[in-house]
């Protein structure tokens, strides 16, 4: 079984985020890391390929400057190879443009199953995976909290407002997984060493046969008009609990007529 996992490489979320003053795009300079949200998809793919008795796990990523550090982490977890799309033309690409690029790259791997996260940690539009499925003419099941392959179909427990639905779909299909679907493994030392020599194919927009006008800021057809400070909440009252803190909470709730 061939599984493709979409993995986004993002600026370290621990570092304070910033917008470029001119373009108002998120600053993506510096080293990128594997988005935590995608570690679940990678782990899921490895487990499903194992359970199916073999098959290859291919990573697909779009990132600036030929960045591969996040991909190496996922390769170290056990993925076999990676396809990276990197091209200066891609700066400022929106979610639909990203989906066009990823869909074209995914096609090359001829997968039975495509996994992605429900949403990334930095842009979190959460629309890219479903856009990919539509562009590839495939069904999709989003918000999976459990994924099982049975023969030529996939069975998913899909998160809902009230609980979850059991959903079944024939392969090939795209599935998005939530955090907690599986526990991602830590790359072993052996894995990290092996990852260094695993193949990473680097492609440009032209290699994928895409028109430059469909991607980048030209293809985005949306524009940030303003960035302003939000209204700050007025500073509140701070009470150090010396045994009577709960009384102040009760007074406050009474004042609000909640009690």
């Amino acid at each position: 079984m061939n599984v493709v996992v979409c993995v986004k490489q993002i600026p370290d979320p621990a570092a304070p985020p910033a917008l470029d003053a001119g373009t108002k795009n998120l600053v993506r300079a510096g080293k990128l890391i594997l988005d935590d949200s995608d570690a679940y998809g990678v782990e899921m793919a490895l487990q499903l390929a194992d359970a199916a008795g073999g098959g290859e796990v291919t990573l697909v990523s779009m990132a600036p400057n030929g960045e591969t550090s996040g991909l190496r982490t996922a390769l170290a977890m056990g993925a076999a190879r990676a396809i990276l799309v990197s091209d200066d033309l891609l700066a400022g690409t929106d979610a639909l443009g990203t989906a066009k690029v990823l869909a074209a790259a995914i096609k090359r791997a001829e997968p039975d199953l495509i996994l992605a996260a429900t949403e990334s940690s930095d842009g979190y539009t959460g629309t890219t995976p479903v856009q990919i499925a539509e562009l590839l003419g495939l069904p999709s099941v989003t918000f999976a909290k459990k994924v099982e392959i049975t023969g030529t179909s996939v069975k998913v427990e899909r998160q809902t407002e009230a609980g979850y639905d059991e959903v079944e779909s024939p392969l090939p299909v795209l599935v998005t997984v939530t955090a907690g679907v599986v526990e991602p493994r830590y790359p072993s030392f052996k894995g990290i060493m092996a990852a260094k020599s695993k193949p990473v194919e680097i492609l440009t927009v032209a290699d994928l046969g895409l028109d430059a006008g469909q991607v980048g800021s030209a293809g985005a057809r949306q524009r940030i008009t303003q960035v302003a400070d939000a209204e700050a909440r007025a500073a509140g009252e701070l009470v150090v609990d010396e045994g009577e803190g709960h009384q102040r909470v009760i007074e406050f709730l009474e004042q609000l007529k909640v009690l």
Partner: protein
Amino acid sequence: MSVDKIWVLAEVADGAPITTTLELITQARQLAGTVEAVAWGEATESVAATLGEYGVTTVHDVGDLGGALPGVPIASAIAAAVSAGNGPDAILLPATYDGRDVAGRLSAKLDRPVLTNVVGLTADDGGLVTQHAIFGGSQVLSARFTAEGPGIYLIRAKSFAAEPSGGAPASVVAAPAPDSGATNAARIIARHVEERTGPKLDEAAVVVSGGRGLGEKDQYALIEELASLLKGAAGASRAIVDAGWVPYSHQVGQTGKTVKPTVYLACGISGATQHLVGMKNSKNIVAINKDADAPIFSVADLGIVGDVHKVLPKLIEALKAKG
């Protein structure tokens, strides 16, 4: 691009339109002369009465989906209307599980981008301008489409207040989905409903949330007991959801629910930006945290610097004593 006609995705739960749909309809009334809705399932006739009350004139009814997930058929029905020239100038969708699927599918079908995580929508210069909360809500970004519509907008819950306009029941017209072939192959084979006592997290007047500061899973009982005494709902930070202490349905924040109760009590929660975006518009915020420098205090109207294991049991006792 002027906006004369807006369509709102009418998601239905327990036989009635969800609150976020009503919020979007209320706002759509301010932005366009005609507000219509897209609905599916069996309850559409009765749902049309409620939608009408909020200002919808016509409901486009896709009908029974035969166990399919809504994403593909609903997007196909909307796309068909657009290509037939009967479509709207803008489509507003609640940022729910199904709303996101419909938006993604529709976007690729129409080759139109989506503006997502929208928390405000205003008319300006003949078009619509969106607001987005970024960096934990400390900044607000505005954006707009630069090409021909229809514009697709995915809007977060609680961005607007739902208010009826007193309209007549909406008329219902059939809008069957064209065959979408392989893309529509997924089927729901069973539904599971988790038990819930008390009000819904996103509708409760009081929300009591717990975080990692509770120390261990069993201590979440304090949160549940306090919530029940205050006739509220129990929420959680992602840290304790990921740790498996409570189900995901309790999570408040960027990847969880947006809540806007009269009072939000954060207990042992640090106040990470991703948590703040889900609760900082609560009318009143009380935080209990042993670290006086915890970021949660920057949004709290009342902050108690103290140990949840001391403050919460006393608070519960005192409330019980009050009866």
